[in-house]
């Protein structure tokens, strides 16, 4: 069985977000890039599945649609333990564009992992779009996954609870928190080995984006916090009713 893990390349979660002067482009100056947190957890789960006793997982491939600067992130995924990386050499114009690029080769895999969202543009889109393009099953908000023969047992979150499901392969699992406990950190040996692992670069196919970011804006700065003394705490509840009018 072959597993594909999609890898989003995103700014470190503590990055201070800046834009160019006319607010039409993200300013990537000085930004540290990381594997999108959910993709890192997905890769960790894929590794656990491969290492499990009696596992049928042969290979784990990671893929990204991005320019050469995302290769550091792909190398990190190889260092964590993926066997091979694929990069489609194109700007990730929008989710439909990215999914179209991935659809060229994702159909060769039995199990594909995507994250619930990329932490930069919060699209919530690529995984589901890719599944639809491939015509395969997908389950979203996946917080646990095990392989039992040709069936996959999946835990997912629903609004108001959680469920355990059985689904058949091929499957695209759109994962969230819980899919693995802690993301794996590359070990020294993994980092050395990553240098010799294959990183294939593909040229993009022709596709049109269906959405385009025109401008960015920063949130309105908040007015200063109104402080109330610890002993007057009751007063705050009255303020919420009479001043803020939210009670």
């Amino acid at each position: 069985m072959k597993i594909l893990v999609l890898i989003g390349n995103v700014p470190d979660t503590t990055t201070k977000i800046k834009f160019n002067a006319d607010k039409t482009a993200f300013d990537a100056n000085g930004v540290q890039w990381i594997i999108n947190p959910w993709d890192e957890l997905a890769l960790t789960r894929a590794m656990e599945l491969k290492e499990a006793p009696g596992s049928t997982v042969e290979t784990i491939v990671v893929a990204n649609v991005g320019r050469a600067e995302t290769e550091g992130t792909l190398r990190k995924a190889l260092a964590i333990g993926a066997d091979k990386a694929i990069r489609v050499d194109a700007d990730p114009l929008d989710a439909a564009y990215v999914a179209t690029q991935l659809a060229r080769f994702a159909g060769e895999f039995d199990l594909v992992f995507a994250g619930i969202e990329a932490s930069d543009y919060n699209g919530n889109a690529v995984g589901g779009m890719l599944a639809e393009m491939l015509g395969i099953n997908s389950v979203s908000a996946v917080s646990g996954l095990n392989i039992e023969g040709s069936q996959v047992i999946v835990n997912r979150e629903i609004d108001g609870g959680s469920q355990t499901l059985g689904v058949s392969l091929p499957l695209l699992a759109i994962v969230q928190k819980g899919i693995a406990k802690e993301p794996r950190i590359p070990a020294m040996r993994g980092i050395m080995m990553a240098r010799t692992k294959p990183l294939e670069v593909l040229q993009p196919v022709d596709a049109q984006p269906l959405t385009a970011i025109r401008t960015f804006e920063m949130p309105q700065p908040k007015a200063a916090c109104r402080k109330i003394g610890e002993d007057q705490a009751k007063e705050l509840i009255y303020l919420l009713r009479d001043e803020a009018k939210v009670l």
Partner: protein
Amino acid sequence: MSVLVYIENWDGKFKKISFELASYASSIAASLNVPAVALSLGKVDNSELSKLSVYGISRILNNPDERFNALDNQAIAKAVAQAAQTTGATCVVLAHNNLGKAIAPRLAVKLKAGLVSAVNGLPVSTEPFVVKKMLFTGKAFGHIEMLSAVKVLTLSSNSFGLAEKQVTASVEFFDPEMVDADFHIQIKQTNKVTGKVLLSDADIVVSGGRGMKAAENWAPLEELAALLGAGTSCSRPVSDEGWRPHSEHVGQTGKIIAPNLYFAFGISGAIQHLGGVSSSKVIVAVNKDPDAPIFEAADYGIVGDVAKVLPQFIEAVKEIKS
């Protein structure tokens, strides 16, 4: 032509989020000068369905097939796509919740539509069609132009609100072409949280962080939440410790919420936490550290001990409720 909205139900009932979606869809429909059509799948009483007309929905399509209750995104996306095609929808609206997020991308591909998820309120303009959404998990917003003929949107809850606009509505049986093979998933077990306000549907959320010290200290926080009819949430370390369930974790790697009122008890206000709650209309912080970053995001704050403040809040809420 139409604006189509997919309305989920919970055991045959709608929630506030359903009516917010209906209000939102009819408002977009009005600006495009087309009717607002709602689609409901699974068993829902006619009296419940017709409530949508209070929020401007003039045509309500329903299919009571119980199989839709399995929340299978493939089956539902197929049915919604057929409804969009038969009503000539140029815009399809869904909730930005677990089900909406699962359906929308599949639906967008079927309709060759662009998708923008977690849209904040009404479109900035409809010609060109530009919507506003949160980016970088709350650190910025973007204005996004949708270039396709058909548009699919998921709406951030509480970003539009309710807007009553009573119209006369027809409730029609809708019969999408479905085959057994469309229903793929086999449900082995469902655990429903009962008697609790859904976090995504809550006007008020009461949240606790590591400053609460231990799982057993949550009783007063839960009491306050119950008195206010509020949902409960927590910071990430709290759910990692197992003090609270993972479903309550809010923030960058958890849920993003935007209630009218958010209480943060013993939460430091790390940037990854704020990403999930900064769109709340009013934030109240209680923290013993005067320099905790949560006070920069808060509207009201108390520098103090949660153990001293919580009982006073409970007492005051009891007073105003009586």
